[in-house]
């Protein structure tokens, strides 16, 4: 079942016949080429953000994605209003992206290997995690557990969604609880951190992959760099909160260029969830790590 969006498709901000300036190197990139290059600058390697649709299309074997829980929609549990009501912000995000919220999950295949996959879309309110995103991540973990399929989550999020108050915060518990049950059952979870992975998303599911991958130069951190620099008068170290910083500090296994991500995932799953039951590996049992 192909990916289907009940709402109007997102208006591509980069029409294919126009040019986009790379924020990495300043070069003007022809959008058609940028799309062909998986939205990575051919000159400097800057990774542009991807929509959920584009991410799934890049990672999964064509035609294999089957979405789950597409009917989950956010509500406005605390009637949140700042300069604009949460309900209005949701409506605007729906219109802009064609998504119902910032997460999409389902089953699909990567190089013939079936997986459960959940991707976040930064375009929907900064990929922020409210109740729908938390629920979808948890259901993805439960779907992976039920079918003993590896779970992949691709994060791109500013963190918890303020407009849902502490209910957004509770999604940290919900997602981590579901992932802990997955871990106890010995089902693999690979976390992929794309730009940005911050706040409550980094402080929950994104951190705890059996293997943690990151795209190059993604912003990854808990406190936003501005908050961090503003609150405490530290001189920030170079590369602060970027993928390479996280790698050298021990929180990321590998930094993977987008063009290699699909093959890399297949390769890692070849170890953690070998097709055919792992004849070559040792005795497999669901031991608690």
């Amino acid at each position, binding site marked *: 079942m192909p990916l289907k969006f009940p709402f109007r498709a997102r208006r591509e901000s980069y029409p294919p016949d126009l040019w986009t300036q790379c924020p990495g190197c300043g070069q003007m990139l022809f959008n058609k080429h940028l799309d062909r290059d998986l939205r990575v600058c051919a000159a400097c390697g800057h990774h542009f953000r991807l929509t959920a649709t584009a991410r799934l299309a890049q990672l999964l074997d064509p035609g294999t994605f089957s979405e789950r829980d597409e*009917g989950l929609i956010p509500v406005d549990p605390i009637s949140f209003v700042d300069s604009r009501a949460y309900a209005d912000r949701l409506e605007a995000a729906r219109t802009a992206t064609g998504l119902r919220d910032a997460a999409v999950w389902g089953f699909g295949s990567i190089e013939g290997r079936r997986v459960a996959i959940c991707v976040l879309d930064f375009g929907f309110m900064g990929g922020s995690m409210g109740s729908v995103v938390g629920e979808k991540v948890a259901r993805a973990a439960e779907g992976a557990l039920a079918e003993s399929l590896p779970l992949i989550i691709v994060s791109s999020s500013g963190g918890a969604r303020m407009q849902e108050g502490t209910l957004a915060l509770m999604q940290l518990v919900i997602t981590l609880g579901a992932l802990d049950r997955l871990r106890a059952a010995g089902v693999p979870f690979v976390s992929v951190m794309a730009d940005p992975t911050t706040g409550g998303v980094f*402080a929950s599911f994104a951190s705890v992959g059996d293997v943690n991958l990151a795209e190059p130069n993604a912003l990854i*951190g808990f406190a936003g760099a501005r908050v961090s620099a503003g609150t405490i008068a530290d001189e*920030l170290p170079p590369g602060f909160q970027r993928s390479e910083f996280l790698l050298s500090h021990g929180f990321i296994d590998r930094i993977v260029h987008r063009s290699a991500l699909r093959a890399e995932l297949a390769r890692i799953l070849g170890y953690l969830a070998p097709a055919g039951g792992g004849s070559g590996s040792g005795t497999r049992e669901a031991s608690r790590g």
Partner: protein
Amino acid sequence: MVDRLLGLAKQAEHPPQAAPAAPPDPRATVWASVQLARNPRRPHTLELLAELASEFAELHGDRLFGDDGAIVGGLARIDRFRVVVVGHQKGSDTEENIRRNFGMAKPEGFRKAIRLFELAERFGLPVVTFVDTPGAYPGAEAEERGVAEAIARSIGAMTRLRVPIVSVITGEGGSGGALAIAAGDVVIALENAVYSVISPEGCASILWRTPEKAADAALAMRMSARDQQALGVVDVVVSEPGEGAHVDPAETARRLRAVIIEYLTTLAATPPDELVALRARRYRSLGAFQDLGPGPEPTPVERPGLADRLRRAFEAGSRTLGDTIGGRTVGGRDQREDVGRLQEDDE
């Protein structure tokens, strides 16, 4: 079991609140709570333990990097219960505040908490946590040592812990740094405690583009203990003596102690499997969304659920919604079937 807890939550709310004389300005009211929650004379974990517990042996260190003064923990005796305590500790003066980093834990604080949680589980000791922090330390060294990972691991440990966990929000429940030790089976809050996904100043800076609007943000986020009770995030609110906990720490501790003991009594009688399953259910119910079901066409008909009930409740303008909605909010998810693979033997 859920009913038992719910019943307990209602009873435990003692002494009953007197009805407010005049409808207060809700913005001023919540901001007053924020100020009280941050009052430097407010009793913190060690001050409360001195009154609550007949014995406390502090245990130090994360066995990895350091001993974080912003989170204390150890072995304590509360009434007939031997427990492991973990709590934030702010200072009561400048020197102590610097040593305690104003209650803002670094990764080593959360990793100490994880170590103590696991110690508690290994020896079958219930856990009591006291939550009072502006948030995790946002400095560069905390980022370097993985404060987000430490918070995630601590929450993850709490979700699987096979012993009872009673969490008490005593002051500021600041975001992930609070939740890291607050994911209990039951969440008690002092009357003027606050709990929020981001500090009101941080929220105001981002959404109102000025920290001056912090009181507005505090109101919009419904961060008061009573509003959190209405949401179901807090199970029971314990009233404070006089103008606030700081005027009578001993009486505050006495009131908390009674509620903690009631919950420990109930939870100690719950088998570990059930405990873990109920805890998962508790948190899973704390999400507000609708399910339109599969199919390409949206069916925007809202079922009356948690969200509706909350909206009506909040629109009524009451500050003490918890009373009307009940100690724990479990609605809105009743019609849903797939709450995970939990054993729900007694339902």
